[in-house]
């Protein structure tokens, strides 16, 4: 989230699209209710199903899953055509005025530079024209046909209300009503918030779904303001934190990136991360990259990371592919190229796509280790559970070790919520049996592995034996010790670079924030964006002061919000070029002639003059990007692509199948149903129910009683077409698997008319498996395709094809 849950009360219009907050985030959704009741805010819900969020919406518009980009570019087109643009914001705070290279074009569904054999682009033409002064060239009059604004205008022009209706199945009048309501928020004194979740991410073009809305929000001037923003409703309690701390194949903590093997040494690594400003006077904050990078290396290897060994740069593993995400991991397993896999609180047998492939892959491992408070399906993938896990244990040679870990109630530390609040929690119960904390388990693995290397020697033990592990009890580092490492400290006394007589941080003390970090090895910091969370003022994440001056919803003294306790990202953009709030009733920070101040920590240098320094300080442009240059794999603008399995062909690019830049492994393409397949004619999607959380609550007695049994949802029209009765049994199958379920026949789902064809939606909730207190059942991953988003490999769970038929139920 750029904003926070409590900030939603400040909005005028809530758009829930790609999510279902009323059911999946019920207590956060209360802030929507608050805005509706007390501010007169309105709610729009766009979804294939009439969800509980939709049931309290002012306008509900149905949409075919996987067509969100066409819908959103349609809204952008509407805003441009009807002059509903926050012009001052767009001209000053976006790259609308920037001139793009002549070689860039979009034609027949593809951007310039496409290589079909590699399924990848040469992105060199997706770039600004750079002048002799080294800066990007701009046209403040927006008359140059090659400026971003004019390219965008042309790019979205095909997404007319008629085209949106044909692609999305959204009735034209519904679309126009939504577009009109949204466009009203182009006024500087009206704002809209976007609330989305995995309904947008779990597509082969998930990142571009989100970009489309981000672009719309920029055009409306809604980023950086109270009641605005792009608000990702993260699905799990600390998935924001796990990502912030960099637990992904290609990341270092704080969104620094791991080197690739092309970056042969420290200097070549840093050379691509120089981030020189692209316009005069801009901050381009990533110029501090080296300070954060060196401080991370120091937090890893302490005194063994020295200027002489480039702070142990060589000890970081170097990537040969963009990333070893969970899909690539299972692909490698399936190819027999992996020996072991360790799952900490993650149940991939139900969470990753194409379960048949997952079972085959896990069966090829030599060993599997699970760490979990609950008895997961993954830990028992080798165990026969009839139709629910039809395997022969004697044929599976994988050694499985299942380790019992503590749950939240027995553990201490911080979780980062959607709104970037790091909140500390304390343990209140004794763990059951011999369950241990994850800190203890990870420490044991490290200590014992280190001991083996010391005793036996072995291949390149240096990064293991030199890992900084100086905890009071090395067998179980405490949460406080680790939090202090994340915050960072000074090894030597740090002096003010502009005034060497002034001490900034004494040697041995924790740094107040990342501003104090250095690139010479005199500081360490586990995760620069978390710096300040546990400084010398104490554990700021444990703060519980509920004061909220003027009731802005900021709650600045509650917990700690990254970065530097900032509650709304890009908040400089809430004020105009003179530093005055666009909307005086929603003041956030303002310029008083000397400095910025207000309700939030300014997202800009406190003395940066408003007319000179742009608000998007992380970008070398100083402005936000409507055209994203070569930074995304599948295009500098979003474009409509159908899901890999689609009930229709792509109307705007008939020859393009799926997202042309998405990675597809050999063998998986053959397992996709053809577009508009007769064999698999129905458009399936997956979702959560309000009574359940992922695959956890089926272990919880109360929730297992509330929703005991797996089912699928279909429309009355499809039910009557197929002879399926309410509560009857059905078989649902895709090209990859087959499941049996009870049928819920509902008015909540209706066929969508797409270009003259009725598209039926089959809804598949995701909460059942073969362990726990609920009845045994299936999950959508028995059916879903093994393909992910082109940029970040989130599997395409929300749009795939199935067939359905009535069947006899199980013998009682």
């Amino acid at each position, binding site marked *: 989230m750029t904003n926070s849950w409590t900030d939603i009360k400040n909005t005028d219009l809530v758009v829930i699209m790609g999510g279902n907050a009323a059911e*999946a985030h019920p207590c956060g959704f*209360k802030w929507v209710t608050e805005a509706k009741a007390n501010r007169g805010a309105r709610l729009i819900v766009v979804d294939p199903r009439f969800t509980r969020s939709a049931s309290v919406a002012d306008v509900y518009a149905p949409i075919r899953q996987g067509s969100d980009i066409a819908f959103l570019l349609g809204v952008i087109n509407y805003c441009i055509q009807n002059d509903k643009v926050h012009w001052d914001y767009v001209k000053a705070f976006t790259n609308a005025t920037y001139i793009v290279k002549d070689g860039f074009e979009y034609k027949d569904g593809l951007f310039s530079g496409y290589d079909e054999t590699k399924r990848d682009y040469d992105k060199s033409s997706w770039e600004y024209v750079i002048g002799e002064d080294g800066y990007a060239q701009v046209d403040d009059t927006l008359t140059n046909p090659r400026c971003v604004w004019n390219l965008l205008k042309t790019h979205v022009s095909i997404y007319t209300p008629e085209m949106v209706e044909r692609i999305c199945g959204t009735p034209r009048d519904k679309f126009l009503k939504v577009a009109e309501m949204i466009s009203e928020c182009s006024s500087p004194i009206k704002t809209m918030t976007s609330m989305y979740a995995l309904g947008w991410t779990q597509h082969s073009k998930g990142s571009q779904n989100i970009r489309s809305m981000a672009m719309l929000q920029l055009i409306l001037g809604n980023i950086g303001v109270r009641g605005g923003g792009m608000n990702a409703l993260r699905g799990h*309690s*600390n*998935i924001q934190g*796990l*990502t912030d701390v960099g*637990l*992904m194949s290609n990341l270092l903590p704080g969104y620094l990136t791991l080197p690739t*093997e092309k970056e042969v040494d420290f200097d070549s690594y840093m050379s691509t991360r120089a981030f020189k400003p692209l316009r005069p006077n801009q901050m381009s904050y990533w110029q501090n990259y080296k300070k954060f990078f060196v401080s991370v290396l120091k937090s*890893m290897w302490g005194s063994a990371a020295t200027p002489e060994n480039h702070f142990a740069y060589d000890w970081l*593993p*170097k*990537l*040969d592919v963009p990333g*070893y995400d969970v899909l690539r991991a299972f692909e490698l397993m399936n190819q027999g190229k992996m*020996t*072991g896999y*360790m799952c*900490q*609180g*993650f149940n991939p047998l139900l969470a990753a796509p194409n379960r048949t492939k997952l079972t085959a892959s896990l069966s090829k491992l030599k060993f599997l*280790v699970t760490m979990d408070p609950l008895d997961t399906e993954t830990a028992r993938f080798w*165990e026969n559970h009839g139709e629910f896990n039809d395997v022969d244990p*004697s044929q*599976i040679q994988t050694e499985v*070790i299942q380790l019992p870990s503590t*749950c939240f*109630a027995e*553990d201490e*530390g*911080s*979780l*980062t919520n*959607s709104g970037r609040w790091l*909140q500390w929690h*304390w343990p*209140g*119960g*004794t763990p059951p049996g*011999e*369950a241990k904390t*994850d*800190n203890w388990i*990870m420490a044991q693995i490290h200590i014992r592995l280190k001991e*083996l290397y010391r005793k036996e020697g*072995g*291949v*390149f033990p240096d*990064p*293991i034996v030199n890992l900084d592990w100086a905890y009071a009890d090395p067998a179980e580092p405490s*949460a406080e010790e680790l939090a202090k490492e*994340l915050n960072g400290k000074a090894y030597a006394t740090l002096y003010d670079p502009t005034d060497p007589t002034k001490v900034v941080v004494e040697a041995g003390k924790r740094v107040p924030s990342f501003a104090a970090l250095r690139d010479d090895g005199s500081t360490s910091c586990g995760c620069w964006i978390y710096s300040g969370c546990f400084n010398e003022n104490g554990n700021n994440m444990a703060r519980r002061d*509920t004061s909220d001056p003027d009731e802005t919803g900021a709650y600045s003294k509650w917990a700690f919000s990254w970065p530097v306790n900032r509650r709304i990202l890009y908040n400089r953009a809430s004020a105009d070029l003179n530093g005055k709030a666009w909307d005086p009733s929603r003041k956030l920070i303002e310029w008083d002639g000397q400095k910025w101040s207000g309700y939030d920590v300014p997202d800009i240098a406190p003395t940066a003059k408003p007319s000179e320094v742009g608000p998007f300080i992380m970008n070398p442009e100083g402005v936000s990007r409507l055209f994203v240059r070569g930074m995304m794999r599948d295009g500098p603008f979003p474009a409509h692509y159908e899901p890999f399995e689609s009930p229709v062909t792509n109307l705007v690019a008939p020859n393009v199948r799926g997202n042309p830049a998405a990675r597809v492994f050999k063998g998986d393409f053959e397992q996709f149903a053809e577009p508009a397949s007769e064999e698999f004619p129905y458009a399936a999607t997956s979702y959560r129910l*309000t*009574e*359940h959380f992922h695959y956890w609550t089926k*272990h*919880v007695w109360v929730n297992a009683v509330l929703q005991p049994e797996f089912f699928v949802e279909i429309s009355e029209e499809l039910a009557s077409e197929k002879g399926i009765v309410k509560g009857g049994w059905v078989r649902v199958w895709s090209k990859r698997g087959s499941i049996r379920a009870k049928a819920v026949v509902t008015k909540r789902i209706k066929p969508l008319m797409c270009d003259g064809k009725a598209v039926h939606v089959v809804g598949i909730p995701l909460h059942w498996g073969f*362990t726990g207190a609920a009845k045994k059942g299936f999950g959508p991953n028995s059916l879903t395709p093994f393909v992910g988003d082109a940029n970040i490999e989130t599997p395409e769970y929300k749009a795939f094809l199935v067939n359905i038929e009535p069947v006899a139920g199980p013998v009682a």
Partner: protein
Amino acid sequence: MNMELSRRQFLGAAGAGVAGTALGAFGFGEIEAAHAEAIRAFKLVNTTETRNTCPYCSVACGIIMYSKGDLKKGEKAEITHIEGDTDHPTNRGTLCPKGAALLDFVKAETRLKYPMIRKPGSDKFERIAWNDALDRIVRLMKDDRDANFVQKNNDGVTVNRWTTTGFLAASATTNETAFATYKVVRSAGMLVFDNQARV
């Protein structure tokens, strides 16, 4: 029998049996004891309160856990009740159908209690001691790492990577556990490393 006394009955009884000054000096005496005995104590009075966060979605509602026993005093503690934290700015005491049932998660029958091992080809899990389980894990890890660790690629560039054993990190562990995990996994040179952000 309902022994609850109204305030009027109580004062009447007190006035009849005890002198006024004694009331102030010594409390209400027998009548008070009788009254206290008659009322079942509020169940949470003798419990320990601990602040925590709901572990499900990332609204991150504040919760209060009540337990018999106090971990801070080194006692065994059994959580007996969990409810929304009314002071929390986001949820203000409310919880959804998942959060409201958290106690049953803590006490789920399928909570794991002991390390288990399933041997190749076996159809069952067997108990294993922590010490043996951990020794076995690092043995398997080291054997694979020593056999498959790549120090240099074909171009002779130092790459120091290990891609034959992978690690999937969680979605609900703390940031502190995440950092400890990061250090352990990366220092071993692992690249096959992901979390649940995608699913």
